[in-house]
């Protein structure tokens, strides 16, 4: 914001010491100019995003407060104790946290232990989208050129982006802490709530700053978002692995910004210094981004564009081939990244089995929950993992359908294609076919990766046949995300973003639906509610449910095509 320009201007004269020639006046001016216009750009960002920012702040604080209230009303002391036992299991650690305060598990301790990961995740996604939207996407659209042609410094857009993000995160943190405090009554420590939320916000800011670095390297906004999310995924994996090594975190945990929020030990034994790590990391990443930005041209990445082919290969013929050409890189990178992630998870199954056996020996209550058989732990762990696998594939399906189609339409490329003898139905069906096939391939790669990872460490149960069944039963649920976003795109392209809302709702239902005893009608929103439990014994209605879900997907796709056939094409919207 404007203070950023101010500090630079103040700092520079301090360097003017007679003993050594630090900076000539010209150099000082250049320094100040790198940030010129930051304040104005920040105000412009706030103006453009004010609605988006309000919604994020409201949803986050309401959800966190609701989470705290629900935990204290649904769970009594003994239920919380049982939950604490679950939190010592591998799936509890991966999907929850490092396990501080498990001995005296109160609702707010549970919020800190289990909620932090998800709060940081939501805020990080928000941060990554914010940063890429205001940096790389601006360059891609050419708007940055117009802005930078004004009296605006090279780093001003980046600093304005990060400053507005920090301010937004701060507001969310304070609001959420206050909302939690208000919902809990007097016995809540407001300081702990603030500590938890500020640390989560600071972690998210680190991922925002990482996205800023990525945006300097990658020359497309889609690529920048993808790579930044991959960075988050890696941090998630590192934190999980680190905490699996030792409860309350091992050295490995500390390499993940996610851990820095969890290691604040809010509501247990609050400490503040992990915040310094987040701040230092953010500053370092900003410095790196600045150094990279100084070495590249506007609109370009770090890797110079290579010349292409003078002509198209013979197979680039028709909309299917073009859709594949446009999506294959995304599919390849997602398959590689997620495949490695799930392969790693699969290879942990062996260690988890051992760990589970030890746990049951120590805590007989867990045996009652999961059975004495360590395979029970593996199955429940796999079930949690399958939800994540399927949600990742669902997110891919949404991007591959609506993001891709919208991009073609609003850029004007669709106009060029439809002016040729290509029917609307033909074009849209081609896009959908490639998107659905891509999502199916991604799901197959991920499920196969878990199986391969498990097989590598000698875990042969469940067998490959069961993995194949899990793939087949989850496929219609994954494709339903593509079908819903296709339906929205076909009828009301402006509302196509709602498919992300469905994905978030499904995540919430999947993680907390059973715990908070949501009504059946709410649970039914999630396509996974209709999917047979993975790696469990098959039940009578399983096949009917899978077929039913497939029919729904098919019907939605047909409706989407009908809608697209009758609506107008709008370029530049």
């Amino acid at each position, binding site marked *: 914001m404007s203070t950023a320009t101010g500090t630079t201007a103040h700092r520079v004269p301090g360097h003017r010491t007679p003993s050594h020639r630090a900076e000539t006046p010209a150099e000082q001016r250049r320094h100040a100019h790198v940030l010129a216009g930051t304040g104005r750009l920040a105000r412009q960002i706030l103006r453009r995003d004010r609605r988006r920012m309000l919604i994020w702040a409201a949803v986050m604080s309401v959800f966190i407060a609701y989470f705290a209230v629900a935990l204290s009303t649904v769970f009594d002391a003994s239920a919380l104790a049982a939950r604490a036992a679950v939190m010592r299991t591998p799936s509890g650690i991966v999907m929850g946290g490092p396990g501080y305060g498990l001995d005296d598990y109160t609702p707010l301790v549970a919020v800190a232990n289990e909620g932090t990961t998800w709060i940081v995740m939501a805020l990080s996604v928000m941060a990554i989208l914010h940063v890429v939207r205001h940096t790389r996407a601006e360059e891609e659209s050419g708007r940055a050129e117009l802005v930078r042609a004004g009296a605006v410094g090279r780093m001003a857009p980046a600093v304005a982006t990060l400053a507005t993000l920090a301010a937004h995160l701060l507001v969310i943190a304070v609001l959420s802490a206050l909302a939690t405090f208000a919902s809990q009554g007097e016995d809540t420590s407001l300081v702990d709530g603030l500590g938890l939320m500020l640390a989560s916000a600071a972690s998210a800011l680190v991922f925002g700053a990482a996205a800023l670095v990525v945006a300097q390297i990658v020359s497309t906004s889609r690529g920048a978002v993808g790579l930044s999310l991959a960075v988050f995924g890696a941090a998630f994996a590192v934190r999980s692995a680190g905490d699996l090594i030792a409860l309350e975190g091992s050295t490995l945990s500390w390499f993940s910004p996610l851990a820095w929020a969890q290691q604040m030990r809010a509501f247990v034994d609050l400490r503040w210094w992990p915040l310094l790590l987040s701040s230092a990391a953010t500053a370092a990443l900003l410095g790196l981004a600045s150094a990279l930005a100084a070495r590249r041209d506007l609109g370009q990445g770090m890797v110079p564009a290579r010349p292409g082919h*003078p002509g198209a290969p013979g197979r680039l013929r028709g909309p299917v081939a073009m859709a594949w050409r446009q999506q294959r890189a995304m599919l390849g990178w997602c398959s590689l990244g997620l495949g490695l992630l799930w392969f790693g998870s699969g290879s942990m199954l062996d260690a988890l089995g051992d760990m589970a056996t030890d746990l049951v020996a120590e805590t007989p209550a867990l045996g009652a929950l999961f059975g004495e058989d360590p395979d029970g732990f593996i199955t429940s762990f796999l079930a949690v993992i399958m939800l994540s696998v399927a949600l990742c594939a669902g997110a891919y399906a949404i991007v591959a359908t609506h993001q891709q189609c919208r991009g073609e339409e609003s850029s004007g490329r669709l106009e060029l294609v439809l002016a040729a003898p290509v029917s609307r139905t033909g074009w849209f069906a081609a896009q959908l076919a490639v998107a659905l096939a891509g999502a199916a391939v991604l799901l197959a790669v991920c499920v196969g990766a878990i199986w391969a990872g498990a097989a590598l460490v000698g875990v042969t149960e469940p067998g490959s046949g069961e993995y194949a069944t899990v793939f087949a039963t989850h496929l219609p649920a994954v494709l339903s995300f593509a079908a819903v976003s296709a339906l929205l795109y076909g009828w009301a392209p402006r509302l196509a973003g709602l498919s992300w809302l469905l994905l978030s709702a499904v995540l919430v239902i999947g993680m907390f639906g059973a715990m908070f005893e949501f009504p059946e009608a709410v649970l039914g929103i999630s396509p996974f509610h209709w999917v047979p439990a993975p790696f469990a014994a098959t039940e009578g209605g399983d096949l009917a449910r899978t077929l039913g879900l497939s029919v729904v997907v098919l019907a939605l796709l047909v409706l989407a095509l009908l809608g697209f056939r009758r609506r107008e094409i709008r370029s530049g919207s």
Partner: protein
Amino acid sequence: MTPIDIRGLTKRFGSFTALDGLDLTVGPAEVRGFLGPNGAGKSTAIRVLLGLLRADGGTVRLFDGDPWADAVALHRRLAYVPGDVALWPNLSGGEAIDYLSRLRGTPDPRRKAELLERFELDPRKKARTYSKGNRQKVALVAAFASDAELFVLDEPTSGLDPLMEAVFTECVRDRAAEGRAVLLSSHILSEVEKLCDTVTIIRAGRPVEAGTLAELRHLTRTRVSAVVRGDASAVPGLDGVHDARSESVEEGTRLTLDVDDAALSAVLPRLTDAEVVSLTATPPSLEDLFLRHYGDEIGADDGVPATGAGR
């Protein structure tokens, strides 16, 4: 069979009326200019013609077919160049040309090579690195390499340098000579004057003039500037004389007049009678016509029905 036949076309976006009773025809082998200022509705009309937007009223026929319902069959016979060409950023220009040509049918590689050379386009560069002019060239090469019967060109030379504009002019002339029909939307008057047989001028979604260039020129005024020694004070009052100004100069009086073409034969003798010393007459141009319709004086003309001789 008429390539383009639009009558009374109305198109609304919410409460905004983009097109309001537009008439536009392009006959076989006709090169029609489609003139109008920014925002007059030229691109909207073309998008309706391509079946991308739906007409709210009037009739739109493309090769006697319905552009919304029969889009695919009709598009086999036309080639389109948008005013702002968007390409696939990760494809090279050559790849984009091949893809677009193949959508239309069997491309002719020799023709592509020839056009690439004429437009001096490097097909190996990624579309992301192309300038606006180069993206325009990609669409032009793809269009002119095709065997279309009708070329729909929406401000096709925006971003082209004068040399490339000349190449474009040649290409259009070549195709017109082969008997293809062309609809050339533009606001560059010289381009339309150079290329088109007929012109439709629209303003705020309504046609204000339509006809052959010769017919339209008829509607315009010749600017006459003369220095006379004698008394010409009666001239400004003559019928068909507009915007007369006079000033004293060394040789006598300088008169500047806009004269309706129909009144020239009556005005010129009066000037010679007044001992004309020098005389220049600037021929009517489309620009005058354009300015007359869109210039400041227009406010007063509003509501006067268009007098297009061709309609």
